[in-house]
């Protein structure tokens, strides 16, 4: 397993946000995490990136216990996250946003990576020297994904990449995620758009108030009556 989370618990002050989370992701898998607003999806990704401390439990990455590792060391190990709400550096140019995505890769062949990102998201080239804050929501989402890819992640964490985007752009984002998986990147995809996420996922986890309540193959979850009722609006 590339990622193994066991008995993970997390608190915000006295509020418990995660309770005994068990998740395992194999190399090359695309795994979806779905659940209602406030279920704890973002909190779980924050714990994985180390920007939110775990209260108990362990996170193992590639066999190594990373539960107490600093965020920057996890990036160096190969965990990159596209956070909820894109979080690009608005005043910095598109180029600088991408360059900083490769911050932990000293001596990296940044030019080659820039070319790769531009091939994946051609719109970025036309905005190359503009402040990221001037991009549209969809363009910022592409930039945020490209920035995370600049780290050459072994595990890519995506937090609601389709949020607030027009349907055409949502489809493009999901195609991108599938292409990344096809290229060998392991992806942990958080989505409120559960139907679309489970349709492309190998496996899925359903989170409810900080607990994993169901886990199964993506297609099996799509057909699951409980999931349909609660999350797919069917």
């Amino acid at each position: 397993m590339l990622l193994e989370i066991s008995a993970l618990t997390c608190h915000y002050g006295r509020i418990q946000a995660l309770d005994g989370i068990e998740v395992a992701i194999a190399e090359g898998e695309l795994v979806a995490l779905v659940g209602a607003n406030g279920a704890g999806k973002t909190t779980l990704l924050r714990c994985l990136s180390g920007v939110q401390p775990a209260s108990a439990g362990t996170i193992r990455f590639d066999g190594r216990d990373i539960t107490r590792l600093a965020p920057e060391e996890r990036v160096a190990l190969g965990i990159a996250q596209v956070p909820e709400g894109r979080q690009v550096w608005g005043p910095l140019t598109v180029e600088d946003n991408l360059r900083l995505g490769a911050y932990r890769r000293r001596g990296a062949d940044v030019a080659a990576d820039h070319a790769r990102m531009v091939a994946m998201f051609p719109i970025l080239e036309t905005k190359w020297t503009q402040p990221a804050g001037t991009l549209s929501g969809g363009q910022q989402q592409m930039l945020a994904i490209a920035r995370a890819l600049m780290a050459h992640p072994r595990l890519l964490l995506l937090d609601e990449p389709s949020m607030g985007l027009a349907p055409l752009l949502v489809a493009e984002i999901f195609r991108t995620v599938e292409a990344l998986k096809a290229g060998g990147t392991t992806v942990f995809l958080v989505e409120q758009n559960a139907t679309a996420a489970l349709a492309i996922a190998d496996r899925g986890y359903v989170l409810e108030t900080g607990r994993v309540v169901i886990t199964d193959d993506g297609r099996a979850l799509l057909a699951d009556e409980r999931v349909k009722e609660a999350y797919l609006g069917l």
Partner: protein
Amino acid sequence: MFAAFLQYLFAGLTSGAIYALAGLGFAIIFNASHVINFAQGEFIMIGGMATTALVAAGTPLPLAIVLAILITMAVGMALEKFAVEPARGADVTAIIIITIGASIFLRGAAQVVWDKEFHSLPAFSGETPLDVAGATLTPQSLWVVGVSVAMIVLLWWFFNRTLFGKAMLATSYNRLAAQLAGVAVKKVLLASFALSAMLGAVGGIVMTPITFTNYEVGIMLGLKGFSAAVLGGLGNGMGAIVGGLIVGIAEALAAGYLSSAYKDAIAFVIILLVLFFMPNGLFGKRGSERV
């Protein structure tokens, strides 16, 4: 008439340059941590005092300057590491109060390590004043302004052309995104204190031949740097530079045309006016600016 005005202007630009460096120091730390570091003035004091003490002990001036800058940077980093860092997670107001405590401690330490006397340094390139349209300009004033400009260019280069400088900017624009990109935010905080200490020390050193220095000069200089930063819009680098020059020139004109008794009051009047009438300063909200 004009010669007198020019004379005041030169004086104002000279002190304004020092306030601008101090204001930049406030801006850099504020951007990295949202902390207002009220020990910024003590960096100015330590730079000047350490240089005078080293020179008095027989160290050649250039070496004394380099050592004094390094000492001040070490003090700045120690302040971050042992006073600010342990309080992270505490309220920003609490951390600001910690910096006030640190400034008092540093003044006390300076009294003990050095003394309570005023000290000076020889002017860097002689005392022969230049005559400019009837006003006199001392070579040391040119040093002050020239060195300040050089520091500003250096900062611009650092923040716009080096990866670590850009990472510091990125941290100030969006700390979470910086952490997720692998920027060690602790290092950014430490560097912001080191840079601010360097700016303060350099200002304190070049001004010492003109104004002299003692263990207490940091109080006034810190407040004037703060008013420069507030006037320019806290966290705005360009604003801090313009703010510093405005504070310097305004107080030189007030001292010249009204009474030198008003000189130090100007900075306070500016702080109050800004806080009442334009809390975001001359250059508005922080966000799109670069240092």
